[in-house]
């Protein structure tokens, strides 16, 4: 019997990422005990996120050619700034218009916490699928927002002194190792590009295995709205501006339209620093996790859809010019 699993992955938009992620989330929601039997099973399928992410970044680093080292930094900076600015603008806008309590049960703080933060893993996997090596390398800069740091800056809850330099370095390290080794050794570069799909599949699964559909239900409608806001404003809007700045059409910018799994911890981190926020923290956490699950599933589909749209338009344009020339 032959089932074309890989072909199926490729046919569904962002399938190589979304399908394992969904499978992981389903298993973790309904049979969480299965993933916690210990040994290599738990090591890989449940707690392997940071390890697989490291392996993934090595692969990504190896595919950046030394000639194009500037491009990832440039792209990464633009995406990070855009995501940050959009998040802060929305948060402060809601604060100005509706006040502290916000709207639809969503407070300005949650908006900032969720929007200014993106999942580096999802961005990087999508960039690998729909962009080139420099797009993937942009995650080196983008990873600054993969935690409560930028959110806290935006909220003024912390001074600039608290820059998590180590976290930044820890993200950069695998990319640098891959970059150096890959540029020195052509064989290693080939090996990495062969291993990449394998790593993506399991990384996505593990990301899914950290999620539960129950949190989505718990957060209710406000969580869903929050997820939609992230997708639309920090996904579509950021991509629109990103395309304008780069003067080229790409769907990769929309890949920052996610809320990172880490952002679930952000409300608690803020509450620890700023006690006035503490009463909102629980609800905010549930909303964040709902937004995480939702964006993790929908963002890849959105990017894939956008990518197809752009390619179709290009094709049409090309045929029009051909006709005109003819």
């Amino acid at each position, binding site marked *: 019997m032959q089932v074309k699993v890989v072909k199926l992955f490729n046919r569904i938009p962002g399938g190589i990422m979304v399908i394992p992620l969904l499978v992981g989330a389903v298993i973790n929601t309904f049979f969480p005990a299965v993933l916690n039997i210990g040994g290599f099973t738990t090591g890989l399928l449940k707690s392997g996120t940071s390890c697989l992410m490291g392996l993934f970044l090595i692969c990504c680093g190896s595919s950046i050619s030394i000639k194009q080292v500037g491009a990832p930094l440039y792209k990464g900076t633009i995406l990070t700034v855009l995501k940050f600015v959009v998040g802060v603008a929305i948060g402060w806008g809601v604060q100005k218009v509706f006040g502290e309590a916000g709207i639809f049960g969503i407070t300005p703080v949650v908006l900032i916490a969720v929007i200014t933060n993106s999942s580096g893993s999802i961005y990087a996997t999508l960039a690998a699928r729909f962009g080139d090596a420099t797009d993937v390398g942009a995650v080196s800069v983008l990873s600054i927002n993969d935690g409560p740091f930028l959110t806290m800056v935006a909220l003024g809850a912390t001074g600039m002194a608290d820059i998590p330099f180590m976290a930044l370095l820890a993200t950069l390290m695998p990319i640098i190792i891959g970059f150096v080794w890959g540029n020195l050794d052509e064989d290693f570069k080939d090996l990495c590009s062969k291993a990449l799909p*394998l790593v993506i599949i399991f990384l996505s699964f593990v990301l899914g295995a950290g999620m539960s559909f129950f949190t989505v239900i718990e957060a209710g409608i406000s969580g869903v709205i929050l997820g939609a806001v992230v997708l639309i404003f920090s996904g579509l809007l950021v991509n629109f501006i990103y395309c304008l700045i780069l003067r080229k059409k790409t769907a990769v910018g929309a890949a920052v339209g996610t809320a990172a799994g880490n952002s679930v911890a952000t409300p608690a981190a803020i509450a620890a620093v700023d006690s006035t926020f503490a009463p909102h923290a629980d609800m905010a956490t549930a909303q964040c996790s709902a937004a995480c699950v939702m964006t993790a599933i929908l963002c890849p589909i959105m990017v894939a859809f956008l990518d197809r749209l752009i390619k179709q338009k290009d094709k049409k344009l090309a045929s029009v010019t051909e006709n005109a020339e003819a």
Partner: protein
Amino acid sequence: MKILKTIQRIPGGLMAVPLLIGAFINTVFPQSLQIGGFTTGLFTGSSALMGLFLVCSGASIRFNQVGIPLYKGAALTFIKFVLGVLVGWGVQMIFGREGVLGLTPFVLIAALTNSNGAIYSTLASQYGDATDVGAISILSLNDGPFFTMIALGATGLADIPLMSLVAAIVPILVGFILGNLDDDIRKLLESGVTMVIPFCAFALGASMNLVTILQAGFSGILLGLLVVIITGLGGFLIYNILLRRKGCIGAAIGTTAGNAIATPAAVAAADVSLAPFAAAASTQIAAAVIITALLCPLLVAVLNKYRVKV
């Protein structure tokens, strides 16, 4: 620069070189592996990488050969256990509980009956075929204090580590199912395996501290050598006789797993009369773990070359 090719040319190099580098970095600059995030995640993530490796290996096992890994695994597990018990009991008979040259029967059994699954399976994938790697599903039974306890008579049947067996089999099973459902997945997983091995070996090395060899002194080094010679060479000979085949895979069980460092304490907790030997045994085993991890790949590679020439 041909870094990868050069490493692969060294006998057992794809495994031994990263392992040595990992152990060296962890000994000299341990804090550089602990900066957190994805760096620490990758360089200390041996169980995730091992899981990934097993998935890839599982995918290479064809549906019609499913019995062979089980058979090979049972043979290897049995050989390792019998050799360890024989040596331990022999020393006990001749020299008593204090043992000889600083090695007690207790530490001999603990180190000899236990093998490093990660090293076995990476060596099997390099020098054997998919069914050799699949044998890890059974061999993983000895990756803990269970067999040592049986050999020392310190356990009832209630302690069978069924869950750890299942936990080692699940990744293989996942790979096996996916690989047999879809040829494309099999190809995808097979081509990923070479990438996973060096990082898995590095992470394994990063859990070792070379200073422990010095701490354990002569007896620790001797223990390591005994494991490689008795269960490595011995495993090689007996395995080939049992299976009537020529191969070097039997030697790949000539290691002591990192888990075994905890075995003396676990056994001493179950049998108080062994408690006085536990502390020295742990240090000696820690040294043996490192020595066997470095020498066993070498032994397998040399045997492989020798076999090929014959």
